[in-house]
């Protein structure tokens, strides 16, 4: 087998995002297993790409690839798929590795569709085995793992976020990679799907994604009004309120507040799970919390298997008592 391993590094905000650095770790190990060089395609706005590429170097990255095209932007998903398809045709890589984010999976799926190649999405481990790869990939957002064969002339895979140690950007800059500018030929069809308008993020409040303390409610909260007790505690702790899928499906909270497989993944210092039984759909969204405290009437609820601490009792009695105790001690953060 000849050729390189090609990693796709996405830099939507002008620096390489963390899931791409995780993909880089796995791609570098794969390149080394093949004894092949690692090439990196920088997916960024044209103005930012050369300086990002200049920060890449050995031992991990042998060649950094930057695209020069008059109209291609980050808002052209098929355009980047066409760039990757042309790189496959021109350079014959063994594998193309991307990040298992929404955009990373989107891009590699578009590439797979163009080149009629299978894609293994959200892998956590890869091992070359003869002509094939044996991959371990996530199902059910990581609640279940699948070992699978990936057998194709070019292996396409993405790396599940937060499963591999990210490459250290400062270690990458130890020596400059050779930088190559590529000039793809893109058709009108390649550029037809494009972002036509953007809206800036809304400001104000503590976002659920970034809060250090999250108070979450489930079916046990009982109603939308029942969230008052959770709001009060979150307010005292300078935290945010979220909920399980049951809660957003019932309309008690907006969908933006959902923690779980089809909502947000959070990683606060503490997650206080109130009246939440602990369906796997919810657990995959909160298990990255440093500490989990469950407040539940049922000492045998599945949440007890993932929580570090538990209070057995009715959340509508326990939460006001906690809020009162914080006030009594004068310890509120807000």
């Amino acid at each position, binding site marked *: 087998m000849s050729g390189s391993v090609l990693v796709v590094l996405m830099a939507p905000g002008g620096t390489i995002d963390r899931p791409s650095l995780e993909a880089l770790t796995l791609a570098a190990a794969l390149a080394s297993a093949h004894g092949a060089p690692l090439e990196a395609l920088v997916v960024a706005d044209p103005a930012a790409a050369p300086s990002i590429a200049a920060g890449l170097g050995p031992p991990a990255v042998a060649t950094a690839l930057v695209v020069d095209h008059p109209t291609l932007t980050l808002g052209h998903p098929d355009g980047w798929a066409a760039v990757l398809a042309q790189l496959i045709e021109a350079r014959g890589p063994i594998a193309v590795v991307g990040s298992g984010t929404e955009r990373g999976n989107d891009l590699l799926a578009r590439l797979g569709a163009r080149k009629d190649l299978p894609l293994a999405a959200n892998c956590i481990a890869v091992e070359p085995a003869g002509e094939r790869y044996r991959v371990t990939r996530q199902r059910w957002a990581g609640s279940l793992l699948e070992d699978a064969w990936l057998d194709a002339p070019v292996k396409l895979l993405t790396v599940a976020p937060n499963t591999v140690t990210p490459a250290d950007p400062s270690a990458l800059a130890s020596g400059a990679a050779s930088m190559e500018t590529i000039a793809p030929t893109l058709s009108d069809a390649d550029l037809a799907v494009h972002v036509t308008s953007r809206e800036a993020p809304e400001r104000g409040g503590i976002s659920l994604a970034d809060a250090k303390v999250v108070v979450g409610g489930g079916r046990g909260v009982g109603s939308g009004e029942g969230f008052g007790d959770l709001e009060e505690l979150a307010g005292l702790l300078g935290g945010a309120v979220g909920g399980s899928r049951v809660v957003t499906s019932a309309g008690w909270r907006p969908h933006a507040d*959902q923690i779980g497989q089809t909502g947000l993944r959070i990683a606060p210092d503490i997650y206080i799970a109130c009246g939440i039984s602990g369906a796997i759909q919810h657990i995959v969204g909160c298990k990255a919390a440093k500490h989990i405290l469950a407040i539940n009437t049922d000492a045998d609820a599945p949440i007890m298997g993932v929580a570090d601490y538990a209070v057995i009792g009715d959340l509508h009695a*326990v939460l006001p008592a906690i809020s009162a105790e914080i006030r009594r001690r004068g310890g509120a953060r807000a």
Partner: protein
Amino acid sequence: MNILVCVKRVPATGGRIVLTPDGMDIDVRYLGFTISPHEECAVEEAVRIVEAHGGTSAVLTLGPAIAEEQLRDAMAIGIDRAILLETDGRDWDPVATAGAIVESIRAQEAADGPFDLILFGNESADSGGFQVGIRTAAALGRPTVTGVKALAPGDGSVVARREAAGGGWESFELPLPAVVTVKEGINLPRYPSVPGRLRARKKEIERSTPEWRSGGPEKIVLRLPKEERTAAQIIGQGPDAAPAVVDLLVKIGVVDG
């Protein structure tokens, strides 16, 4: 506007997953089944678009004969007709699934004219391949956007809005016909009415049996990830636990002690 929604029947897993002894599947003996969550919202979105703009809607699934249940669930909230691509119950990989869906769409469009809009879920809850919608769009030569949380149909086009990678929102205007994959949160699906359920029970389902194929990746075995946490330490009962909880919050550093 004529809309097709593609859905997948998945187990409602609840608190924990149990595998069959050979590790090839989830033990579903005690589980209910549902339409994968993003696709439930795709079904609701199709019904709403037809209610607002006129047209017809259809739902399609590739799955075992009993996936008829999920097709009837979709018809119970207002989808007009249903297509079942019946399998013997084995998992189809994403390449094979997209291939069978494309064949069915081509056959239906040859008979009844084009679907203006084909909706998928962003990814299935169970296998999470993130690609069947994109592969279908590519094979049909239609534009596609993934992860969509708002759809606004216009005259000959649709505006699809999704969360941008760095926060905020980005929109795409796609000429029709188009393929869109949606995410939960685009709407809040309604519950089916009793008359809706009765109507759905009587409707014919269009069945065909696509030939088994494989395109990869090929499943070897399933396994459960190692559990990192141990059972919770119970720090109190009822409101009397409040001082112990606040001590814990002080220790963790989220309350001033």
